Structure formats: C-alpha cells, structure tokens
C-alpha cells in the first residue's frame, strides 16, 4: 500500500525531461514550418481547392507542395528539421510513457487518479495520436508545432499548478473501473484535443482563403494560414479524429455510469462532472450532425471547439472550483 517515494521521484524527473524534450521538438517543427514552403504566401487558395477531388487515380500530392517553386536547399533544411523533430518527439513520448509507468509502479495502481496524472495521460495520448497520424499521413508532419504546443502547455500546468505527490488510492477509487473509465476518458480527450487544434488551423486557413478571395489580406492569417494544408484536408482530419474519439468517449461515460452504480448506488446522478460530461457529449453529437447537414456545415468547426471547451471546463473548472463526488483533483 505504501508509496515508493524514490520511484515517484524518478517519475517526476522523467516527466520534466519529457516536457523539455517536447519543447525541443517544437523548435524543430517550428524550424520546418519556417523554412519550408516559402513563397507559398502568394499562392492563392482558390486553385488548390479545385484540385481536391480531381479525378486522378493516383492521389495527388498535397496541393500545398505543388504551389510556387520552393528553393531546394530550403526544402532540404526544412525536412532535416522536421525529421529531427519527429525523432525528438518519439524520445519524448518514450520518456513520458516511462514516467507514467514508473509512477504506476510507485503507487502500485493505475497512475491516473488525480489531475496531474490525468493531464499527463491526456498529453501522451495526444502525442501518440499525432505520431500515428504522421505514420499514415507524413505530410501533416509540419503541423507538429501546433499539435505539440497545447501538449506542452497542459503538461507544464500538470507539472506546476496541478501537481500532487504520489499517494495511495482512496477507497472510492479502488476499482478496476478506474483503469477502464479513466483510460477511455483520457484517450478520447487526448484525441479530441488534437482534433480541436486542427479545427483552429482550419478556421485560420478558411479565414485566410476568404480574405485572399476578396482581394484583401491580413498579415495575421497570412503568416500562418498560407502555409497550412487545404481547408478540405484540415476539416477532414479534424472530423476523422473526432469521429474516432466520440465512440470512445461514449464508452467512457457508460463505464463511468456502470462504476457509479457500483460505488454510489445509482448509475447517473447529475453530479457536476457527470453533467459536464453530458454537455460535452451532446455538443460533440451536435458537431457530428452539423457537419453532416448541408447548409450548416460551415458552423461545424465552431461546434467542435465548443465541445472541446465544455470538456476543458469539465477538467479545470469542475475539478477545481465546483465540488462534487468526483473530487479527486488532489489539489487540497
């Protein structure tokens, strides 16, 4: 039952090292983003949009790379930055996973029973989701900067304000449902976080395209928007991630209800955490419906962000400010 403090200490050190490694990877991704695809700023989005769905049997390379000629040396430098960043990300993810595993060994339980541990798991899932996505679609690599940014932020918060020392599980959490319910919740939230990042990028790109079309330009959207993949690609990947995560999130809520039945005598009691899980679920359901409805599709990205907002509220505000049965923040 006792916590192995020296193991817990090793886990903390690995956690900090993982954050530093991710930050280093971010520099690599930023380098790739900065050096790659120069000269793209003037390439308008309009022809690119038409390229999507052109009837070629071989998939066209992402339109972004067909645009204005890019100097090869710049491209090679960008690619070196990108490849290095991926290697560093993998190293960071391994450190991060080891940190979680050692924390688990230290408390002799699944290590995601408080906000620090939960945020750490969400972070590693988001990184893994991105790595898997990159393995299947290498062309999204240069978006690493945007995906890693929220991961580093949430891990920094986890390591500072949300941190709590490794401690044995309170009786209420001593259940195998902790492993199932929280794993499902953390996985889906990690994936939905990546989906929301891509949605923000999509909105930036869409705004940029609209400005270019109307002959105006904004330095702000042009700085980022011009180098992003086509709106269609961003929207599709964001949707696919959300569509992948939604059943997992649903499963997580149902597991929570089964656990609540065994722990509190009722499967659903509108505890604040349950209420916000319900709100986020309903909003993501609305996202899937909005995206499938012609005429409303343009609102879908905002609904996606709203859903992620509800989920973030459920994590930070409900855990810290509102008291309820799910009071395991570990911040007292």
């Amino acid at each position, binding site marked *: *039952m*006792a916590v192995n403090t020296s193991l817990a200490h090793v886990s903390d050190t690995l956690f900090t090292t993982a954050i530093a490694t991710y930050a280093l990877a971010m520099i690599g991704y930023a380098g790739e983003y900065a050096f790659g695809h120069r000269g793209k700023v003037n390439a308008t989005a309009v022809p690119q949009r038409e390229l999507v*769905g052109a*009837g*070629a*049997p*071989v*998939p*066209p390379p992402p339109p972004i790379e067909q645009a204005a000629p890019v100097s090869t040396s710049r491209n090679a430098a960008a690619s070196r930055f990108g490849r290095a960043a991926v290697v560093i990300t993998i190293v960071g993810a391994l450190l991060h996973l080891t940190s979680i595993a050692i924390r688990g060994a230290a408390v002799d339980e699944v290590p995601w029973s408080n906000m620090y541990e939960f945020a750490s798991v969400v972070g590693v899932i988001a990184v893994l989701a991105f790595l898997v996505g990159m393995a299947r679609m290498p062309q999204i690599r240069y978006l690493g900067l945007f995906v890693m940014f929220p991961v580093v932020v949430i891990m920094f918060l986890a390591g500072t304000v949300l941190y709590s020392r490794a*401690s*044995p599980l*309170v*009786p*209420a959490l*001593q*259940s195998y*449902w902790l492993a199932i319910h929280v794993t499902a919740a953390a996985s889906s939230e990690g994936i939905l976080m990546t989906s929301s990042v891509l949605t923000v990028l999509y909105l930036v790109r869409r705004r940029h395209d609209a400005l270019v079309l109307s002959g105006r330009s904004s330095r702000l959207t042009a700085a980022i928007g011009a180098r992003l993949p086509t709106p269609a690609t961003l929207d*599709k990947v964001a949707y*696919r991630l959300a*569509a*992948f995560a*939604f*059943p997992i999130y*649903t*499963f997580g809520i*149902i597991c929570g*209800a*089964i*656990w609540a*039945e*065994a*722990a*509190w*005598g*009722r*499967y659903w*009691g*509108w*505890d*604040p955490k349950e*209420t*916000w899980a*319900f*709100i986020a679920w*309903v*909003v993501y*359901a*609305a996202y*899937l*419906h*909005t995206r*499938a*409805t012609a005429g*409303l599709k343009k609102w879908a990205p905002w609904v996606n962000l709203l859903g992620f907002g*509800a989920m973030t509220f459920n994590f930070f505000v*409900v855990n810290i400010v*509102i008291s309820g049965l799910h009071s395991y923040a570990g911040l007292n």
Partner: protein
Amino acid sequence: MRTALVLLFLLAVAAVPGSLLPQRPLNPDKTRSYIASHGAWGQFLDHIGMFDVFGSVWFAAIYLLLFISLIGCLIPRIRVHARAMRAKPLAAPKHVERLPESGSFETSATPTEFADAARSALGRRWRVARRQQGQTIVLSAEKGYSRETGNLIFHIALVVALIAIAVGRLYSYEGSRVLREGSEFCNEYSQYDTSRLGRFAQDGKVSPAPFCMTLNKFSVAYSAASEPTNFAANVSYGPAENDHAHTDTIKVNHPLRLEGDRVYLITHGYSPEITIHMPDGSTRPDTADFIPTNPTTYLSEGAFQELGKGSGNDVGIEGLFAPTGVSQDGGPITANSIVTSSSPRTDNPVLAITVYTGDAGNTVHSVYSLDKTNLKSIGSANLALGQSATFAGGVSVTFNGYVQWAGLQVSHDPSQLYLLGAATAMVIGLIGSLAIRRRRLWIKIGPASLTDSRSPTVVSVGGLARSDSGNFTDEFAGWLERLRSCGPPIERAGDPVPAGKE
C-alpha cells in the same frame, strides 16, 4: 435536422445551471442556504425550477421534444433503409467517367469472363447487380449498408435507453439508513431515515424486497498517515427478523447484491455510549449516532436526550466526539479546553459535553440536535474514556465507550440491465455508423468495337463515396488495380506494357 440540432443545443445549455447552482435532490441544505442568502432572486430561481433542473418541466420538455423529433425522423429512415437493403444497387449513370473517381482499361477476356472474374474479385462485402445492355455488361456494386444500420441502431437504442430510464424511475426506490454495530433494520420504507421513492413505490404498487440486516462490525483500515485505505461493513441478513442465514462484507465499490435490491456502504461514523444519572434518581444508559462534521478528522456532533419523571427533570446533552482528542491550544486537555480531533482513528476518544436540564418537550426534532427552548445549561465537561462528570442537581454523565455506525443505502431499479443493453447497442451502433463507409462502384464491360468480334474488351469503372470520403481517391485506385488484374492484359507488338487509358 435543424430542429433536432436546436434542441440538442438547448439540452446542453439547459444542463449548465444544473451544475453551477446547488441542486435540491443532491444537496438540500446548500440549496436552502443559497435561496436564503439570495432573497428574491433566490426565490425567483426556485420558482422557475433552477434548483431541480433535471426534474424541471422545461428540461423534460426539451428532451421529450428531442425524442419526438428523433422518432419522427427515425420511422421514415427505417422504412427507406429496409427498402434499400432489399433493392438492387442502382443502374449505372450514362457516363461513368464523369463520376468523382473513374478509370478504364482494356483486357483480352470476353465481357462475360471478365464480369464473372470481377464479381468474385469484389467479394462478399459488395452487393452486386448485373445488367445487360446490348453486348455490354454493367455491374453496379454497393457496400457499406451497415453504416446506416449502425446509425439506426444507435438512435433506436437511444430511445430504448430513455424508456428504460423512465420505467426504472417509476418502479425504483432508494432509502438510506444509519445502522449501529449490533443493530438490525428490516427493509421497509418506514425504516429508512431518508428515502426517494418512485411513483409506484409511493402508491404502494412496489414493495421493498423483504430482508432484515444486522451490522455486526464496521472496520476501517488506515495508512501510516491516518488516511483511510479500506472500509468494510460486516453484515448478516436473512428474510426475517433474527433469521440471518447469510453473512457478507459490504465495501465501497462492492455493494451487496440481493435479489432485486442492492445495499451500499455510503458513510460511517461513531456512536458514543454514556450513562446518565438523572435528576429523578434513575440511571439511564444512552447511545447516540454522531454526525461527522470534519470528513478528515471525524470530529463529530450529536445529542442525547432522556425524559425524566416529573416536570423539569429531562436531561439533554450536546456532544462533540473527537476520535483522537487534542486540545485546540496544543496543551493537555483540561475541563476548559476546546477539544478537536487530529485523526479519524480512535487513539484518544474524547467526548465534550454540554448538559441541560428542564423540559425537553414533545416536539419532534432531529436526533442529532436538541430543542433547547425549555432547557437550561448546567455545565460542560471534557470526558476521556471511562471518565464521569457531576453537575448541579445530582446529574452525572459517564463516557463508557463507543460503537461505530455505517450509513447504508438500499437501491432498487429494475430497468438497469435493459439500460445497459441499450447503452451497449448505442456504442456498437455508433462504431458502425462512424467507421463503415458507404461506397458505390459501376463497372461497364463491353467490346471495343461492335463489329469486330476479335476486338478487346473495354472496362470503364466509376466510383462514388456516399459518405465520409476519407481517402477515397486511394481506395478507388486500389479497386481499379484489383479489377485490372481480373482479366489478362492486351498484348500488342511493341507495346508490352498493358494499355491503360486514364
């Protein structure tokens, strides 16, 4: 869809106050003090049901409208889908090359040979209709019907889940009961301290499962830091009073599941035992269940009351029980110390009392506090285990010991398993509706020339992604390649590479 979306958003928004304002079913005390401290605004909120959002008319109206709209949408969709499942895949459009994805190639196989080979290459997942147009064979292939099936299963399961919840509500009951070690309670509505009864339980149409239960022993295991690591209530139970054939241990996360009813361990506390020497000369043993006011140290509050013979001879005692008693000033506990507790373990139990005499009155009040209107304080004392204190009028109090009590909850909801079934169907349906892709392929197989019987066969293929296009371009290229290998390529002199027109 627009109506449904508006209702979905309304549902999400309507749930928000339910988490931000105190809710009466969850926390009646907090709700009362919130209304009291917010005056007219609090009363207004109460009037519009803001303190019982999930039981309010408007919340019910939103989800009922949502489900009506859902059912109205589902019925025609089920009909359409049932028809689509039976129908042959659609005939090919006139120009397959104008479809989003298309390609063509030539083969030396005859149209019939190629059509047979193509049919078997597509496999069982594609539903294929074969049509003949002159010398041309057209295969219409379609797959991914289970996408809509999954979608319908999800939405039907959602309706079933709502019905299961509603029916469960009608038949359910829930009661909580504080049970002291060594005491027994029988499962009747009247024996619950607090209860929440469903409509049919209120009307007496549902009677609680017949069993009686005794708490033999309640135990807590602590870590070195005096944090609880395990709670266990050892109980014996049976169908009638004093007829207990079974024993079991109820723990957090491990309720006792009896036929129909579940018994949970929710809270626990201490019940100090005292002996009171009354003003009328009699001696009364008394035990009272104290309510923990500090969840960490288990400093607990409670009251004793004994009615004496003759007017003015009642005794009331307000008590504070500290499992590990310490003086608030850090020194040793004296008669004047303010006692508090440093740990929930009973390392140094101390009972701090204030004793009253007078008329306790017959008004019904909480067992945890005194009605002091006609009582007069005669002094107070801090008692360690076994100690006594004597007060004016020959009254004395002895702190004999303590037992523990467990807060048990009995729950009954006959629809739970149906709801679990519906929830499982929801997840399965959801996976099907989001992961399966609807695809259509048309394959036109005909001779290149209608007059030359030795002319090669031309195959033109068109494809359409009916849902979630994903990487349909890649997917289609894969299918085109597979179809190309269904027939031998044309061999022409000087042109060893299979001809492919794209």
